[in-house]
């Protein structure tokens, strides 16, 4: 198992960031705290020698949350809700850069020495691959089907052009106003 110092550092950061991400008032801050939580959990996994899982978790979390952040900012129009001072914002973003950098530096400083800090024995990608394609082949296929189904569903929902075209015709404000203007004229001529 890992040493108490590594555990204390990463668990403290992970739990504090998780609480902050749930309780933060602004979506932007919540998302950044969530990414911070992902980094800390990945650090714990690296300490447990599950480096591949740590990389997968961090990459998916960061990509998902940055995409969501962009979309949430578009939907909820965050620029109109700004209330923080420039100094406060700068300090927060600096902390969001410094904290993961400090975690990475901590891991790098601990990894080469390894005296009781990290679990012994390297994680084997070959063993993971063999296990995935032998014992857990059915699970792997199920997971692949779930992911493929999700992608197909997402693409189908996004590419629904028929509904798009109908909505455009029904809801075009210029068209609607033109129709309202034309209507009395047509009635008079009849």
């Amino acid at each position, binding site marked *: 198992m890992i040493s108490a110092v590594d*555990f204390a550092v990463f668990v403290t950061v992970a739990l504090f960031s998780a609480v902050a991400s749930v309780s933060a008032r602004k979506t932007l801050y919540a998302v950044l705290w969530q990414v911070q939580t992902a980094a800390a959990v990945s650090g714990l996994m690296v300490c447990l020698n599950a480096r591949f899982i740590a990389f997968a978790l961090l990459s998916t979390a960061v990509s998902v949350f940055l995409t969501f952040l962009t979309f949430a900012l578009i939907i909820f129009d965050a620029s109109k809700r700004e209330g923080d001072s420039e100094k406060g914002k700068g300090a927060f973003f600096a902390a969001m850069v410094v904290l993961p950098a400090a975690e990475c530096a901590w891991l790098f400083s601990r990894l080469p020495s390894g005296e009781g800090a990290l679990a012994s024995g390297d994680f084997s990608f070959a063993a*993971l691959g063999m296990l995935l394609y032998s014992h857990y082949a059915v699970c792997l296929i199920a997971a692949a089907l779930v992911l493929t189904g999700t992608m197909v569903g997402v693409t189908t929902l996004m590419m629904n052009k028929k509904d798009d075209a109908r909505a455009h015709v029904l809801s075009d404000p210029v068209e609607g106003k033109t129709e309202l203007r034309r209507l009395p004229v047509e009635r008079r001529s009849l």
Partner: protein
Amino acid sequence: MTVEPAHMMLAAFLLASIGVWGILCRRSDPMRCLASVQLIFWGAALNFVTGASLFGDVSGTVFALFAVCVTAAQAATALTLFYLYYKKRSEVSRKDDAL
């Protein structure tokens, strides 16, 4: 002093509990709900990895990998629902403007 597996499992439990608390407290905010569900998944993945490290078996890591995959799929679906909601909302506001 070394860390026992129980400590790691307690940390995973706390992470999942924070996720449950987030879902219960922030039900009206879909973004926070998604973040809370992710916290629960990460707690589960951490538990799997701890088990794999404890028993020296890679199977726990495999299941953690599946948990990460399911999280990614769930996030993609949620993103689509967000997009459809956004499209529907802008459609309704355009109809209101037209009327």
